């Protein structure tokens, strides 16, 4: 393809080029190809056809006779429930098939190669002579069909085909059993060494389209007459299921027609089925009833009509991608439950039960008859999400559309409930009471959830000689809930007013004794529900109550809730309210300072610059109450400009100190409350910030204030460029500039942006905290900057594809890990729009990418910048990750994320959340087990013995900000430089682990080695080698740590 052709193809937008090229590549990969598997399957197909053509008619038998006859051949007739009555007047017959056809995706060459098993559908048309006029009533057609199928099985058994023949329900529809032919088990065993190509052939009985009159089988008709004198209800599923059997060949023709008239049809089907598969949809009822066949038919019908005035919605000239997107657009925009699409002319009546309708007038059939309202809601939501991400101009949505799987329940749903299938009763229509379950849950949960999904258990195939298995005892229905984070934890539900009698009665009927009449503050008297604070979440309380009331005690008892474990990993509340004390305290601080008289310069602004002030620390701000001393939260203060500032870096630092002294003095004079003191830092570099002011409130919150002076930047830049200075001074200026930018220019806007996002997305704060806990638990806390972690978590919220914005901590956390496991940081920058409202524009993204590529060109071995994390407020991308983490650490991070995702995938719902947070320390060379009383995290039992002493220590405000283990870690890092790599568990794990860097490998002895050595001479002729003196270094570390280190553990390998 020449570039200009390509351009025409994508109609200009340069961003879609990438997408287009990747789609082409994908299509090449998934188009069917002939291989061994196909050859083997086709050989079997021919054998089957030959066997079926040989079959001979059998005389009509009564049901009893037929069953006995076939049992002699060891075949049980797979009658649907309810069984045919023993006194039935009609007889069962078998005749040679009218025709045998290969249909479906295999015949159309649209079967995607990515599938594990090759599945071929083969229809066997039952001659219409077998059926009587009224056979569409009361399952009679299905009984005869079952008998016919059993006879086919018998024929195949007689023909002794070397295959394994079993019964199964066609797409989970219990009315329609089929035969599944697979390679016989014996031959698989004999070829054990070489796994045989996997294939499966479905033999589907169908019949002629004129056997029964179409108008008798429209969805509002009743075809299962009630036994008593009850009013006949419509049986839409039964009718359509029967009708589908009659239309098998008709749809085959439709698809073939579409394929010949529209060149891109096949590719559109491939794309569609890939998209569906990645989202867990399938033709099977458990898969939502919308699979490859439905997709292809949908597209084919939209090519014919469906639009206003009978015009077609899609055009035959569209490219495959346009067809794909157009179809999704229809799915997303139009609610087919309320506003069915009608293709062709003709009248139809819809049953207003919320099930979607795609009415094919020519064939008098609703193509979507299998799609239940919940499946449809999910489908529509996914279509909407996909349309949104395809429209996202900033980022390439290809992976999210076609590559990522989104059907993992824990990652998809905020809450997953499993209910035993056997406990739900079966209704007349032939299907269990999922509908009732859905209706009850929808009404009961109301706006607390945005989606309810029900996944029935998948029925398995069974042997032809045994009867249809009863619902498996252990099989369970999986209910998935997606929360609305704003309303999910509401404790009081308002029902209808007491005056509207009918509604109130219905409310009472639905809720039973849980409904209470209450008078509210505004004077209204409403029916209402009050949910208490038991150990369970409110959603769990509601679901359990509803299951018990509308189903049975047993359902309630056996219902299992999954996914709550992640929330329990964090102590205290998950919402931003946990940070309210420090937020209030910050406001107080601002008022206190702004209220001061007598400051030499007026204040321009006071800015928060700490994770505590953006709802992002593992534990909410620790005051005395939390049992450990608080760590002061960073804030910056900027004064109005003045010409009296000195124009010298060192003098500026002293002037700042003078300002802080004045501020401290004024604060002490004006108020009784915050205690203040001035601390010193950066002792070795006099151009860095030298002093800060610690302000401590009695509530236990504390702040660390530094003065922001904008002239510093210019001076630092000048010093950096000054050629007359020594390299060390220039380097110091560069470091100083980086620190200056982080502290004064980047941290405050970052803090504000993250705080804003946290209040917009209720689950974000918890996700960040859990993610930080994860990093700390794996001893990566001192390597991956907390701002980088925040960016990772925020990314999942502002750019959630292929999901919607997470509405719980669990989904937020798992999806972040999922993304982290796949993040190829070598070649992809992390770019996050922290504004969450499109402040990041395409030119910005391009500029960031250019910068990223420049870094990679400059430093291809990733010695300095490994993770590149940019946002709309930090386009440099290196602010938080310059020099840290190193490549080896980043690689470990990815490996750990991968292992965590594998754990989730492997164990599914049963996954133990805590297992994601533990990794063995045996991976490290040595481990310093810190003395428990020193880590500040968990308190040991001994310490709790003298409560008064402990409280005295805690109320000692001079210890605010005292973190001995953190100091030890920093000191060790500076003493050993790059010879040793330390890993800290921070507050989560009381250990510091270490690795010997490869640069400590033996080498020629010299003076300036950055680690302790042993001279080593192997022979007289050899040069003296310097070998790292590990024992001595560990002894030194133990001396420096003294009482902080409880034990040094060495892992030999």
């Amino acid at each position, binding site marked *: 393809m020449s570039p200009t052709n390509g351009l025409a193809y994508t109609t200009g937008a340069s961003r879609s080029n990438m997408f287009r090229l990747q789609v082409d590549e994908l299509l090449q990969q998934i188009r069917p190809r002939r291989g061994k598997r196909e050859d083997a399957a086709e050989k079997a197909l021919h054998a089957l056809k030959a066997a079926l053509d040989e079959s001979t008619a059998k005389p009509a038998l009564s049901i009893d006779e037929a069953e006995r006859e076939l049992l002699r051949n060891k075949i049980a007739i797979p009658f649907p429930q309810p069984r045919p009555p023993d006194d039935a007047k009609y007889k069962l017959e078998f005749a040679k098939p009218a025709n045998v056809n290969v249909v479906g995706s295999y015949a159309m060459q649209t079967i995607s190669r990515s599938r594990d098993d090759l599945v071929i559908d083969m229809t066997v048309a039952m001659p219409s002579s077998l059926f009587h006029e009224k056979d569409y009533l009361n399952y009679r057609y299905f009984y005869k069909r079952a008998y016919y199928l059993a006879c086919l099985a018998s024929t195949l058994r007689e023909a002794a085909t070397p295959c394994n023949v079993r019964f199964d329900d066609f797409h989970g529809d219990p009315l329609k059993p089929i035969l599944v032919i697979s390679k016989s088990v014996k031959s698989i065993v004999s070829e054990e060494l070489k796994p045989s190509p996997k294939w499966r052939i479905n033999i589907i009985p169908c019949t002629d389209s004129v056997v029964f009159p179409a108008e008798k089988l429209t969805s509002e008709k009743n075809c299962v007459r009630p036994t008593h004198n009850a009013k006949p209800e419509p049986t839409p599923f039964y009718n359509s299921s029967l009708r589908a059997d009659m239309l098998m060949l008709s749809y085959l023709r439709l698809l073939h027609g579409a394929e010949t008239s529209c060149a891109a049809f096949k590719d559109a089907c491939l794309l569609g089925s890939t998209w569906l598969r990645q989202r867990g949809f399938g033709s099977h009822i458990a898969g939502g009833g919308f699979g490859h066949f439905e997709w292809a038919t949908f597209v084919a019908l939209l090519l014919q009509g469906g639009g206003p005035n009978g015009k077609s919605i899609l055009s035959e000239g569209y490219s495959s991608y346009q067809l794909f997107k157009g179809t999704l657009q229809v799915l997303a925009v139009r609610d087919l439950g309320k506003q069915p699409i009608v293709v062709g002319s003709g009248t139809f009546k819809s049953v207003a039960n919320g099930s979607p309708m795609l009415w094919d007038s020519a064939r008098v059939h609703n193509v979507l008859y299998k799609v239940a309202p919940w499946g449809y809601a999910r489908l529509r939501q996914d279509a909407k999400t996909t349309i949104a991400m395809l429209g996202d101009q900033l980022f390439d949505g290809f992976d999210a559309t076609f590559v990522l799987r989104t059907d993992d329940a824990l990652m998809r749903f905020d809450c997953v409930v499993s209910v035993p299938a056997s406990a739900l009763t079966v209704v007349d229509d032939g299907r269990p009471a999922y509908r009732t379950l859905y209706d009850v849950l929808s009404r009961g949960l109301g706006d607390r959830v945005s989606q309810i999904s029900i996944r029935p258990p998948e029925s398995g195939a069974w042997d032809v000689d045994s009867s249809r298995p009863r619902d498996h005892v252990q099989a369970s229905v999986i209910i998935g809930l997606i929360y609305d984070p704003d309303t999910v934890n509401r404790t009081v539900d308002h029902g209808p007013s007491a005056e509207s009698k009918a509604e109130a009665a219905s409310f009472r009927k639905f809720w039973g004794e849980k409904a209470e009449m209450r008078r509210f503050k505004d004077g209204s008297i409403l029916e209402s529900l009050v949910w208490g604070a038991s150990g369970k979440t409110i959603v769990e309380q509601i679901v359990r109550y509803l299951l018990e009331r509308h189903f049975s005690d047993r359902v309630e008892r056996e219902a299992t809730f999954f996914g709550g474990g992640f929330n329990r990993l964090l102590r205290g509340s998950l919402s931003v309210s946990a940070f309210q004390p420090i937020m209030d305290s910050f406001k107080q601080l601002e008022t206190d300072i702004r209220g001061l008289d007598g400051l030499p310069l007026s204040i321009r602004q006071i800015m928060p610059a700490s994770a505590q002030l953006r709802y992002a620390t593992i534990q909410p701000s620790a005051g005395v109450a939390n049992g450990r001393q608080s760590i002061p939260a960073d804030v910056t203060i900027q004064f109005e400009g003045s010409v009296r500032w000195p124009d010298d870096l060192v*003098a500026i630092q002293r002037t700042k100190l003078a300002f802080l002294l004045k501020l401290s003095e004024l604060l002490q004079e004006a108020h009784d409350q915050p205690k203040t003191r001035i601390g010193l830092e950066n002792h070795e570099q006099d151009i860095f910030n030298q002093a800060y002011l610690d302000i401590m409130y009695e509530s236990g919150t504390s702040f660390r204030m530094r003065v922001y002076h904008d002239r510093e930047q210019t001076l630092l830049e000048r010093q950096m460029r000054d050629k007359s200075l020594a390299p060390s001074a220039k380097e110091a200026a560069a470091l100083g500039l980086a620190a200056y930018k982080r502290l004064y220019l980047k941290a405050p806007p970052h803090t504000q942006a993250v705080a804003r996002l946290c209040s917009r997305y209720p689950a974000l704060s918890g996700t960040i905290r859990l993610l930080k806990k994860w990093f700390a638990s794996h001893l990566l806390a001192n390597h991956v900057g907390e701002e980088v972690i925040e960016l990772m978590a925020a990314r999942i919220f502002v750019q959630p594809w292929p999901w919607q914005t997470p509405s719980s901590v669990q989904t937020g956390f798992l999806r972040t890990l999922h993304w982290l496991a796949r993040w190829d940081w070598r070649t992809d920058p992390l770019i996050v729009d922290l504004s969450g409202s499109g402040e990041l524009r395409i030119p910005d993204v391009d500029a960031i990418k250019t910068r990223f590529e420049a870094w990679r060109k400059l430093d291809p071995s990733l010695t300095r910048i490994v993770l590149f994390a940019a946002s709309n407020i930090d386009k440099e991308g290196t602010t938080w990750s310059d020099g840290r983490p190193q490549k080896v650490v980043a690689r470990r991070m990815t490996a750990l994320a991968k292992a965590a995702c594998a754990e989730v995938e492997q164990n599914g719902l049963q996954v133990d959340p805590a297992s994601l947070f533990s990794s063995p320390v045996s991976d490290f060379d040595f481990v310093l087990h810190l003395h428990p009383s020193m880590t500040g995290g968990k308190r040991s039992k001994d310490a709790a013995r003298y409560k008064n002493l402990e409280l005295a220590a805690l109320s000692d405000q001079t210890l605010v900000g005292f973190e001995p283990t953190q*100091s030890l870690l920093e000191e060790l890092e500076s003493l050993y430089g790059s010879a040793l790599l330390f890993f800290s568990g921070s507050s989560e794990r009381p250990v510091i682990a270490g690795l010997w860097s490869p640069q400590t490998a033996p080498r020629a002895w010299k003076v300036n080695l950055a680690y302790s050595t042993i001279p080593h001479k192997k022979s007289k002729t050899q040069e003296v080698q310097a070998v790292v003196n590990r024992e*001595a270094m560990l002894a030194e570390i133990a001396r420096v740590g003294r009482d*902080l280190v409880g034990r040094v553990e060495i892992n030999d390998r």
Partner: protein
Amino acid sequence: MWCSGPILDRTTMVPMPGNKKTAVPPAVNDFIVLPLQYPATPSYTQTATHHLYLRANAPKVPTDDTPREVFLVNVPIDATETHIRSLFADQLGGARIERVDFEGARVGKGITAPVAPSRGKKRKRSQIENGEDAGKEVGLLPDVWDRELHRSGGTAVVTFVDKASADLALREARRAIREKRNIIWGAGIEGKLPPLGSARYLAHHKLSYPDHATLQNSVDEFMTAFAAQEAAKAKALARQHSVPDADGFITVTRGARVGLARDEDVKMKEEDLRKREKSKVNEDFYRFQNRERRKAEAGKLVKGFEEDRRRVEEMRRRRGKIRPD
């Protein structure tokens, strides 16, 4: 529990030497190798042997003191002057030490007040001659550590009282090695030094918050000196403006700070000018302009497409074929 596998690729690593005692040579290049025994500690219960390298100091530019100096390499990280004094005085023949200079020790603790004019009234002693003087300076901030630690593998220069002592020290060290004498690090000075561990960090924490009055004093002193220095600088500059040198030329010097345009102001003006120039003629006024613009756009698209294609190819190379999960 699940494992994640080794963190570092260890193909380059070599196992520790098994019989290091016998393999350690008595000297490396011209350094003597002196084994020091580290006593066991509660958390690390085995003794370890550290190797200190010594030789007579031989800097590229010798000073008068050089003959009585000894150069140490691989100094233990917790070494102090007390340690070194005790090592030579008590365990190695009793040579007496004048002072120990550790590598990277912070001269003047890093806070060097700018060079003040010689006429500055507040100056207690003149420092013009040697700017990096280690002496007490004006306006220093208080020290925040009670004891310095040194980077691993670092060096130090030990100045003995005289050359004889230095020679004695080296001789004693050689003899100790020959006799395989067991020299214990830090023996005899227990309790004489500020402790390490949590006490060290607690002390540091306390020292980091000095008394406000002290700080105020220090700042005041510094600022006065600084002001004086600025004034002197300005005066010196002004003098230079008018003083001809030996050949009768007046050196052109940077003017006073006030008069000099700041870089950023200049840049801003330039930017303004460019903007004004740009807005003079509309860029889509002539036909050729439109044509060229369109051409450039098309070129950009083609380039973008090529770029994308390259990127996809790159992706394929890296990740293999695109396949749905």
